[in-house]
Structures are given as C-alpha cells and as structure tokens.
C-alpha cells in the first residue's frame, strides 16, 4: 500500500498557496500617508489638478510623490504631519465645492501588485481615528412630523373660511378646538382625507368641539426610517466635507448611527461639524429702528413680525414672519471673501424654487431691507444623578447682516457678517444639508496615532513570537512531521491574511489576538493526526496504513471540535461591537483555513515525503 498524491490535489494546493501569497503580499509593503484629490461630482479637471499640485509643492515637503490616476490625483507623503499640512493647503487652494482633498492611506506595494490586491483594512485601534455612536432623537422627529400637520390644518381651516378655532401641537398630539360642533365635523372629514397617517379622536365639552390626532403606528415607523436614512445621508455628506476617506457610516439598530473616521485627530471639530444644525434663513426687515427699539422695550411686536437680535452687538431688529428662502433651498455654498471689503463671505447658490421666490420677493422690494438669519440648533446631552438623560437645547438665532436690496437677486449671491472660520463651517454645513432630527453621542472612542502605531507593533510582535515558538516546538516534538505541521501553520497565517485582504475585512487589535490564538489552536488538528499515527504504529501497523488511518480517524474529531468553536465565534460576531467582531472574524477564518492547511495541505506534503516508504518506523 502507498499514499500517492493525485495530481489535482497537488495542483489545488499549489494554486491556493500561490494565490494566498500574492493576496497577502501587499500587507508586507504596508501603507503610505496620502492626500487623495478628486472632483466632487465630475472628474477632476486638469486645471484643478494643477492648482492642487502647486499648492502641495509650495509646502516644500520632502519626498512627495504624485500618482495621476485619470479621475484623481494621489499625493504621497513621508509622514502624517506632512499629510495633514498638505491637505489644508490643497483645501485652501481649490474650490471646495467642486474638488475634495481627503486624507487617506494608500498601498505602498509596487504598481503591478496594486492591480492585483490591496492590503487589509486597518481598524481604528490600529491606525488611529474616531468612532462615534449617535442616537437619533426620535421623539423630536415625530414631534416635528406632527407639527407639519398643524400648519396643514390651519391652512385648510382658513381655506374653508371657518372662524373661531385654535390649532396647536400640545401634550404630544395635534389638537384642534372649534367653537361650532358642525365646523368640527366638517373639518374632521377634510382632515381624514388629507391625513391618512393619523389616528383621530373627537371629544366635546360645554363650549367647544375638539379633534385630537396622533401619527399612527405605521406612520411612526415610516417616519423613523425616513429620518434615520436622511440623517445618515447628511452625516455622509458632512464626513465627505471633512476630508476623511474610507469613513464608515452605518445604521445600527433602529435609532442609532455609527460613524467611524479613520485618521482624524480632532474629535472636537468632528463633533461640532457632525452634530450641528446650522443654517441660514432670508427674511424681509419689518419697520424701522424706532419700532425695533419700541418692540424690544416691551412696546409689543406686530402680529406679522418677530423680534431678533443682531449678532454684532445684540441690538434688536424686527423681521417679517414670512421666510423668503430657508437653508433647505440652498443647493450649494462656498466660503470666500467679499471682493470690495475682503470680509469673509458665504457664496450661496439656490435651487430652482428658491431662486424663483427670491427673484419675486426682491423684485417687489427693491430699496427695502433684507436680513440674513443664522440659525444654530444644538442639543447637548447630560445625565442627572439617576442616570437619566437630560437635554439642554442650545438654540441660537441671530441676524448676521441686513442690507438694502439694490438689485433683483436670483440664483447666486453672497452673505457676509460671519468670522472666517464660521463662514467656512457654515458653507460646509449648507453644502451637506441639514439633519432631520437632532443626534446625540452615546458612545465615543478616539485612538491617537501613537497608540495605533504601538498596537500594530505589539500585535505583530506577539503574533510572530507565538508563531516561531509553536513551529520550533512542533519541529522538536514531532520531528519531520512537526516541521510539516509548522509549514502548514505558517501557510495558515498567510491564508488568513489573504482572505482578510480579499474580503477587505477590517483588522483590529482583538483581530490580531484572534490570529495568534488560531495559531495555537490550529496545530491541534495536526497533533490529533500525529498522535493517531503514533498509536497505529505502536499497534503494529505498517507506515502507510498508519498514515492513512491517522488522517481518516482524526477527521471527525477535528470537524466536531472546530464546529463547536465556530459556534462560539458566530455568537461572538452577533455581539456586534466593532473590535470584538474583528476577533470573531479572524477566529472563524482561521478555523476554516486551518482545516485546509492542517489536514489537506499537510497530508500532501507527508505523502510526498513518505508516500512510498516501507517498514514500521517514521520520524514522528
């Protein structure tokens, strides 16, 4: 009896080994710090590419390398500091509305290898960065959805010419009060036609008839989904504006959003930009400085006006209740400087509907005053002693400037009155769109670059030391067979890295721990097989019968043992938190690849060495 290798098995092993090595190879070269310059909606133009490149060259960085990749330019830097400085330089030099400059890590492997495979994606704990878990304030979202009905109801009542009513959002429901019960019944029919999403209730007392309504369950669910999706879209836009590449923005559960920003080192700014709801509003000015002063000192505000304060000095001003244009109608915005005064300015581009309205209003009001209101809503969360959430709503509504309308305005115009930094942030927020409901941070993890580098170094060291120790031990204990097991083990690590690179899975520090643990456990399959072979030899089997029986009898045991470990890994994965998932992934992949290398792979090598040997002794 002999143990020969069929040709297909040898070819399969060779194929897997070669592709494994090629796929894993980019990880040896590592990554370079890069700034990726690309067009936002259209491919990068040559002019903009030139602008960006000369901005980088003006920084005098050492060892800069440019890669022209058709639609984008990648600039590679020697270190992270240079990368950050260059990103700022480029952002200042180009028009941010059209060109983005994102900090990035790019593969440092040679060009031919880059075409075939990419290195593993490194988690935040290894490359540094920020992880936010946001909770969307759904109560607020439902409330504002119901408030939209309040204005609908008012409009319908007015259209029907009914007098004596009161409609408001009160106590978590929409409530309407009518002096005449017949009016109430007529309106109820109309409201039912308009609002299929509402559950209606009616009641009456001696004086009035009431309708109260709430969003029904299906509508609440739909609204929550919509708000979550819109907030995710807005967050994605804002993250892109921040110049982060390869960010993660994902839904988690029904009310939460995960945002991961690799490479970002300034959590304060990231928090401010992601969570802010700043926007602009354009309104006509009402009355004159005398009526403004009178209104602010208790003289009463006219019914069609609202009292505001000027950002500059806090002095009062009255604005019309009607809004000309809101921030939602702003299609595009960029920051720059006023040509005459050099004051920081935001250049605003309106959408079709907004432009039409702006044109109509300014046409009628040439010579009158128009004001720009800067609105910022922030919800700060704190916790009281019982551990309950307390919301501190911080609302600012300030008039940043007002001026005489000299010309008819339409699509594009500028607004001044903010500081340089404020103008830049506002332009960014206007471009990215507004959040549909406030979001609160419920979890934040920031890893600095120095810790990330330490984690990689220590993780790599422990993996290498562990691997070497086990390979040496196996070679000492099982001699030739042990060396084969060692080869299978090294192959296993290569395959884990290859599969991770292929799937573009994220490697985390616990993920590295998973690889290390797999190294120790993967030899178990070979230990089981070798102990079986020894037993067979002791009971007097021939060399070939012992090898064959050893592999066959050990198989079910190995499979059973590995399946139960896989069960634990799957449960671990379902636990769901980023870093732990990394551990579960590498552990699972390691178990599967070890079945291949430790059983299939080692068998082929053993057969090749001992397949034709006769007698009763083996180097095991």
């Amino acid at each position, binding site marked *: 009896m002999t143990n020969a290798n069929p040709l297909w098995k040898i070819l399969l092993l060779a194929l897997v080994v070669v592709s494994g090595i090629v796929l894993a190879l980019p990880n040896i070269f590592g990554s370079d710090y890069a700034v990726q310059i690309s067009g936002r909606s259209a491919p990068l133009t040559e002019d903009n590419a030139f602008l960006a490149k000369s901005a980088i060259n003006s920084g005098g960085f050492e060892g800069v390398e440019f890669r022209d990749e058709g639609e984008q330019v990648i600039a590679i830097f020697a270190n992270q500091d240079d990368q950050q400085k260059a990103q700022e330089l480029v952002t200042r030099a180009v028009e941010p509305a059209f060109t983005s400059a994102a900090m990035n890590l790019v593969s440092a492997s040679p060009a031919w290898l880059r075409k075939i495979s990419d290195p593993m994606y490194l988690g935040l704990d290894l490359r540094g960065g920020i992880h936010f878990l946001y909770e969307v304030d759904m109560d607020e979202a439902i409330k504002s959805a119901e408030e939209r009905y309040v204005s609908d109801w008012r409009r319908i009542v007015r259209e029907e010419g009914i007098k004596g009513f009161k409609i408001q959002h009160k106590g978590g429901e929409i409530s309407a009060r009518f002096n005449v019960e017949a009016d109430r019944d007529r309106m109820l029919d109309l409201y039912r036609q308009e609002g299929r999403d509402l559950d209606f209730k009616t009641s009456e007392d001696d004086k009035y008839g009431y309708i109260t309504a709430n969003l029904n369950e299906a509508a609440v669910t739909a609204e929550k989904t919509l708000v979550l999706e819109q907030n995710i879209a807005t967050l994605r836009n804002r993250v892109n504006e921040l110049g982060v590449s390869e960010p993660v923005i994902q839904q988690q559960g029904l009310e939460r959003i995960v945002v991961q920003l690799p490479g970002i080192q300034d*959590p304060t700014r990231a928090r401010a930009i992601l969570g802010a709801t700043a926007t602009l509003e354009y309104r006509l000015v009402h009355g004159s400085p005398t009526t403004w002063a009178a209104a602010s000192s208790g003289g009463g505000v006219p019914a069609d006006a609202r009292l505001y304060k000027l950002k500059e000095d806090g002095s009062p001003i009255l604005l019309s209740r009607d809004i000309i244009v809101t921030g939602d109608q702003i299609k595009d915005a960029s920051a720059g400087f006023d040509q005459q005064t050099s004051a920081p300015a935001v250049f605003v581009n309106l959408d079709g509907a907004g432009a039409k309205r702006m044109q109509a209003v300014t046409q009628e009001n040439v010579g009158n005053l128009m004001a720009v209101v800067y609105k910022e809503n922030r919800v700060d969360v*704190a916790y009281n002693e019982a551990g309950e959430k307390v919301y501190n709503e911080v609302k600012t509504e300030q008039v940043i400037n007002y001026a005489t309308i000299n010309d008819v305005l339409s699509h594009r115009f500028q607004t001044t009155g903010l500081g340089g930094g404020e103008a830049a942030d506002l332009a960014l927020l206007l471009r990215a769109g507004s959040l549909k409901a406030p979001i609160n*941070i419920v979890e934040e993890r*920031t890893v600095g670059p120095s*810790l990330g580098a330490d984690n990689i170094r220590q993780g790599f060291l422990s993996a290498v030391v562990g691997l070497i120790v086990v390979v040496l031990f196996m070679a000492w204990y099982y001699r030739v067979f042990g060396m084969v097991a060692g080869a299978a083990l090294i192959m296993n690590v290569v395959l884990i890295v290859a599969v991770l690179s292929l799937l573009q899975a994220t490697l985390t520090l616990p993920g590295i721990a998973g690889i290390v643990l797999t190294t120790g456990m993967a030899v178990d399959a070979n230990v089981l097989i070798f102990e079986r072979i020894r037993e067979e030899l002791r009971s007097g089997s021939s060399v070939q019968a012992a090898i064959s029986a050893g592999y066959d009898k050990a198989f079910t045991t190995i*499979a059973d043992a590995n399946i*139960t470990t896989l069960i634990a890994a799957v449960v671990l994965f379902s636990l769901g938190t980023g870093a732990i998932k990394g551990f579960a992934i590498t552990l699972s992949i390691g178990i599967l690849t070890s079945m291949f290398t430790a059983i299939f792979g080692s068998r082929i090598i053993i057969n090749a060495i001992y397949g034709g040997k006769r007698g009763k002794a083996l180097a095991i």
Partner: protein
Amino acid sequence: MRNLIGESNYDFIGHRRPAMFLSAALVTIALLAILIRGLNFGVDFTGGFTIEVGYEETANIEHIREVLAAAELPDASVQNFGSTTDVLIRMAPPEGDVTGSALSDDVLGALKPTSESEIKMRRVEFVGPQVGEELRETGGLAVLMALFAIVVYIWFRFEKKFSVGSVLALVHDVIITVGVFALFQIEFDLTILAAILAVIGYSLNDTIVVFDRIRENFRTMRRGTPAEIMNASINQTLSRTVITSLTTLLVLLSLFIFGGKIINGFALALIIGVIIGTYSSIFVASTTVLGLGISKEDMMPVEKEGADLDDIP
C-alpha cells in the same frame, strides 16, 4: 519518538472524588468572589469616561489629580497605565449639566497648560450609561446563547448525557475564570467577554476530543466497565490534550508578554480558561457523563444516527 506523556495509564476516574471536591471548592470561591467583591466592570459596561494621555517624561500622578480636582472634574481616578509616562484617567458617567463626550476636551484643556512637556492624547473612550447597560445584557445573553447552541449540537452529535457533561464543564470553566477577575478585581471589559466566549470554544474543543474517543471505545472495546472504558479513553487522548494546551498556552504567553497593555486582560482570561478547560475536560465532563450512568446501550441509537456522518473521510 519524543514523549512528554508516553503511554499513560493513570486512574483518572478513580480519583474523581478529590477532583470533584477541588472543582466544587474552586467554583464556590469563584461564586463568593463574584457575589461579594463583584466584578470590576470597565467603561464598556458601566458607561463613563476613560482617557489615556501620554507624557514625554515621567508623569506626576499627584499633580494631575490636583489639577483635575481644581478644574472641578467629577471624581477622576488617575493611575499609570503600562509605563510611567502613560496615564489613565477614569471618570464615572457625568452628572448634571456636564456635556456628553466633550469632557475629554475639558480634561486635556485642564492638563495642557500645567505641563511643560507635550501631552499626547492616546485614547478617549466615552460610553453612555444606557449603552453600557445594553452591552451587559447582550454580553450575558451571548454567553447563554453560546452555551445553549453548544448543548443542542452535542445532543445531536453525541447523546444527552454527554451534552449535560460538556455544559457542566463549560459553566465550571466560565465561573472560575470570571471568579479570578472578581477575586483580583481585574478590569472586566468587552475584550474579556470575548475571551470568555473563546474559552468556551476552546474548552469544548478539548472535551469533544475526549468524548469522541469515549464513544469510539464504547463501540470497539468488547470488555470493560464504563469506568474502565472512560479511563482508557482519557489516557489515550492525554498526550494530545497536553500538547495542544501547551502550544495554545505558548502563543497566549507571547500575547500576554508582547501584546501590550490593552490586550493583557484578554490574554490572561484565555490563559486561565485554557488551564481550567483542560482540567475540566478530563475531570468534570467525563465524570459527569459517568455519574449520569452512561452505558453501552446509550450509544446504540447514536451509532445508527452518526453512521453516515462518520463516513465523511
């Protein structure tokens, strides 16, 4: 042929009473430690702040405490982390009007002006109390789910008595490992939970290898009482059990020594778990199966069921 164990013939089953006392004692101590001392839950589970800062020179812990106290930051615990230049600052979830995660800015803002050398922010972790509570729940649930899924699998592949034996061994391992963390008040965070689940996987691995041999021997050995068959099975797999535990412990030691401070607890939990798991698959799992009165007849229906599965090469 090198042999650390050789062809052994130890009387494991005969020594099951002292082993049972030892296990019972260890589990009792562990449970008492968990109940009385409680677990030193990390920020993952309690909610709160952890901020790690790196100084260029040896950090003055006392000074940092004073600065933070002066800045009216809520009872911060300050300690060295791994080296004399690294400092870990931990705080309970903020009360009153202290704003969410912006607290890290306050800490750095307070420390930076008082230090001559540069301070590097190495890591900030903020976990809201409700997120922590959820993680505690899902974490406990995950351990139970893993145990349940494994009971079902073993029941299906082996037999009810094996299933009971393996789970008893797993519960034994989990309780003792968690007990060590309670006894020495080592911080219990999310990575430790991951390690506990990996311990469940590993310990089971060991147990199944022994069970597999017990099943095989019940079918092939013509003579012998169940106790003798079990003893033979454990002895036959002993060499493998020891070698595999040894290689696993070798890599875990490498992880413990070189893997850095963050992964330390994780490696420690696995080291304890692997040692206890190896012991339990010999003394707890098998003796439970024997105690439940396993007999050759029990293996008959399983033999039929498992027949086609065993045919896979």
